[in-house]
């Protein structure tokens, strides 16, 4: 348990992706089964433990310490799970004889939780003070903890939790509380954990994703395969995820080497990539990384009465004409369940562009044109409100396509896709068969307002920038923050901005500096972004998608930076 706790502690504070991967992979390498598999399950959100409410945690701790002292502690720390893990009486209960006699708690908690009778430094004893029935248990494993929590009934859950906390050390207590309060929230996605697992082999992460839905914690057969001790696990699940084929962006000089006659073009729609799989009565809607998102889209799942695996773009609206914005789609994302009202207001559908499997036959080895022919026939038989066909865009040459890309017929189009006619469907991002050619990004001239220090290689540089645009009446303009960006500039430009920040600091708040930014003085940044969403969380009312610094405008006076109205106009 202590090794898992240490892993969480390190992950919380490690900002770099590579650093996190290394920590997780090393953990998988060092820790044996089943603990490492349970750690993997915890990181990927696959661990099934009945959750404990914050109010119950508070009750448990208030039975063990003076509520006033707890109040001071909670005020100082700010996070309930962390406070409880820190103040929980230490194992051992060896009150010092030199200490004054301990007070007893003023009352015993009613209900089903047993109250420790031992003295505590939180009531009056000294070091230790925990339940004397328990000694610190350095050997308690994650498997012990998970087994105890999973076998606990609703009524004895709090008592089981308290018993575990009584035996654990500080970091382990924090980890246990994180496990039972649901959601580790330590900045590690399921995808990252799978990548770390793939690094253990090493194998391609696509292989892990393909297998994932047939496996269950603690994944012993998966680890055995990755360590070369056993064959690859058989794909056991019905309706498995198939690793998706990804495209490369068109870069300078790419197109002149290609013959337009070898490629088909489609619009690139601004939704999310999904895979709709229905096989043997099992229906699943997967995200592009293989996460099962079926729960949020019962309307789509209900219409999946076929035996096939479809690749397409999830959008909201009523096809083929009404296609909602990404903002609309966001109303439906990241939900476990979705109300009927929400489904009616934001109906979801899939705009299909590929067919991977049909009636038990794998089509991925066929050429694009072949698959497309099957797809067109197949789509015709589906519910047109839930599935439509991504149309092909006819074009004669790159110049004509460029014109069409710059002025697409629909606002939800963010560019064009190019697909080589003879290409099979390949997992990953092979260079050549598929390209994305995005519409040029939007840009806005904004003024640098705050800068935050980076991490790792950038830890002595102010490298994360919050920028704003002008709002308010003429003569009373003020800057309102509209976004934050931390890339897009060269190393040389980073040095220049860093110097500007240091020379123009007005205030410091920990790692953040506010810099001089008024009508006459300040640094104008040209910020590129992919789109805007409405936001109730930001004062400006807008949130940028994928913002990055595209140019430094040392030449431009801050007063000439853009106004908020320029951005608001993009919303509609």
């Amino acid at each position: 348990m202590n090794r898992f706790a240490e892993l969480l502690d390190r992950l919380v504070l490690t900002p770099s992706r590579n650093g996190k991967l290394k920590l997780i992979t090393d953990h998988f390498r060092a820790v044996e089964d089943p603990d490492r598999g349970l750690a993997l399950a915890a990181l990927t959100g696959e661990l099934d433990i009945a959750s404990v409410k914050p109010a119950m945690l508070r009750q448990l701790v208030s039975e063990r310490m003076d509520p006033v002292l707890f109040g001071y502690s909670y005020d100082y720390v700010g996070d309930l799970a962390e406070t409880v893990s820190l103040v929980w009486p230490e194992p051992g209960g060896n009150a010092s004889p030199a200490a004054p006699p301990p007070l007893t708690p003023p009352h015993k908690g009613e209900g089903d939780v047993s109250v420790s009778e031992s003295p505590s430094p939180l009531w009056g004893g000294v070091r230790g003070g925990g339940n004397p029935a328990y000694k610190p248990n350095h050997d308690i494993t994650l498997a012990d903890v998970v087994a105890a929590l999973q076998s606990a009934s609703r009524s004895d859950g709090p008592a089981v939790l308290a018993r575990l906390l009584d035996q654990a050390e500080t970091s382990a207590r924090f980890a246990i509380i994180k496990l039972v309060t649901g959601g580790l929230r330590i900045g590690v996605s399921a995808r990252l954990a799978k990548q770390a697992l793939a690094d253990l082999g090493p194998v391609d992460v696509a292989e892990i994703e393909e297998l994932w839905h047939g496996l269950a914690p603690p994944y012993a057969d998966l680890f055995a395969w990755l360590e070369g001790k056993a064959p690859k696990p058989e794909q056991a699940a019905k309706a498995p995820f198939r690793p998706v084929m990804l495209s490369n962006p068109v870069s300078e000089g790419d197109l002149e080497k290609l013959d337009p006659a070898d490629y088909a073009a489609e619009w690139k729609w601004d939704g999310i990539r999904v895979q709709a799989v229905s096989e043997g009565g099992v229906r699943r809607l997967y995200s592009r990384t293989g996460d099962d998102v079926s729960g949020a889209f019962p309307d789509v799942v209900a219409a999946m009465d076929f035996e096939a695996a479809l690749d397409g773009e999830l959008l909201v609206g009523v096809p083929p004409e009404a296609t909602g914005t990404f903002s609309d789609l966001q109303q439906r994302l990241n939900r476990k369940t979705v109300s009927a009202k929400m489904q009616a207001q934001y109906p979801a559908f899939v705009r299909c562009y590929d067919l991977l499997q049909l009636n038990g036959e794998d089509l991925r080895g066929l050429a694009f044109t072949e698959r497309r022919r099957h797809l067109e026939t197949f789509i015709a038989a589906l519910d047109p409100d839930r599935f439509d066909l991504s149309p092909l865009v006819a074009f004669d040459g790159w110049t004509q396509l460029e014109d069409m890309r710059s002025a697409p017929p629909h606002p939800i189009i963010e560019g064009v896709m190019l697909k080589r006619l003879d290409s099979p469907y390949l997992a990953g991002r092979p260079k050549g068969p598929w390209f994305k050619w995005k519409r040029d990004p939007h840009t806005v001239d904004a003024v640098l307002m705050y800068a935050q220090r980076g991490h790792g290689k950038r830890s002595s540089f102010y490298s994360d920038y919050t920028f704003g645009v002008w709002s308010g009446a003429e003569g009373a303009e003020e800057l309102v923050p509209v976004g934050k960006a931390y890339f897009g500039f060269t190393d040389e430009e980073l040095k220049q901005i860093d110097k500007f920040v240091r020379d123009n600091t007005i205030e410091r708040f920990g790692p953040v500096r506010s810099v001089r930014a008024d009508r006459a003085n300040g640094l104008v940044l040209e910020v590129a972004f992919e789109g805007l969403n409405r936001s109730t969380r930001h004062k400006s009312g807008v949130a940028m998608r994928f913002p990055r610094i595209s140019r430094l405008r040392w030449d431009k006076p801050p007063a000439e930076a853009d106004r908020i109205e320029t951005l608001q106009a993009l919303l509609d």
Partner: protein
Amino acid sequence: MRARDLLHPRPEGLYCPPGDFYIDPVRAVERALITHGHSDHARPGHARVLATRETLDIMAIRCGADFAGSTQAVAMGEKIRLGDVTVGFHPAGHVLGSAQISVQHNGLRIVASGDYKRASDPTCAGFEVVPCDVFITEATFALPVFRHPDASQEIGKLLKSAQQFPERAHLVGAYALGKAQRVMRLLRDQGYDKPIYIHGAIARLSEYYQSQGVDLGNLQPATVEDGDRSDFAGAIVIAPSSAFADRWARRFPDPLAAFASGWMRIRQRAKQGGVELPLIISDHSDWDELTATIGETGAGEVWVTHGREEALVRWCELNGIAARPLHLVGYEDEGD
């Protein structure tokens, strides 16, 4: 005499009228008794200063040889008569030379702890319990959330990380007096025998510790020879944490920020400071040490100063000990 007539706060600091002296005054005074060399306790400009030999040496290093009109070194345990009172210096276990100061008048004894810790520290003499009527305790970490783990376990984390990320320089933020040297000594105790690189701000005090018999091993200045950053890959570099934000830190390859401090117990605190590897190593008492020490002194009354006074006062109330906050101003959470 009532306790508060023997010692009470004034704007200059804690004053003793019958002895006519101040303890750790924050402004220049005629006579000052100094508990230890941290800059919020040991300020220059007093006419006469009484302190341990080590504290006087440290003040001379930090403030210049002429930091006071005259100085007098006091040995640990030695009794000195000042006016109507007898004062004594007793090891506080905080940093090299740190002392608690006992002030006795007839049958009444007050002990001012200065900053202190109970955990073992190979770089300074360990805390001695001095029985007293009134104990003036610091309260830097006086909340039940602060329980410092064994320091060697924390050093183990640092060594493990240096092994796990051999391409990164491990920058350890540590206060220049006491913490930095303790971290070095703990590294040596765990068998780390490579050179430890140090920031210039730490060099003179580390030399002084070495001259006092604290062996810190091979220390090298953290300067770039021939501009080769890779020299520092996997190295351990000790610096005041303020240096991390400085351009100074750019000489290291992909630095990993560690910080040795009792504050590192709180994850948010580490996160906000951009610390990747928190090392909970403190030169102050944690909650359990504070409450245990109060009990061991047998004091019937406790005065609480600089830190989270309210929690310790509350604990004393729960335990039937008279307690009040002292409201001294001018002491920061420095030195940890």
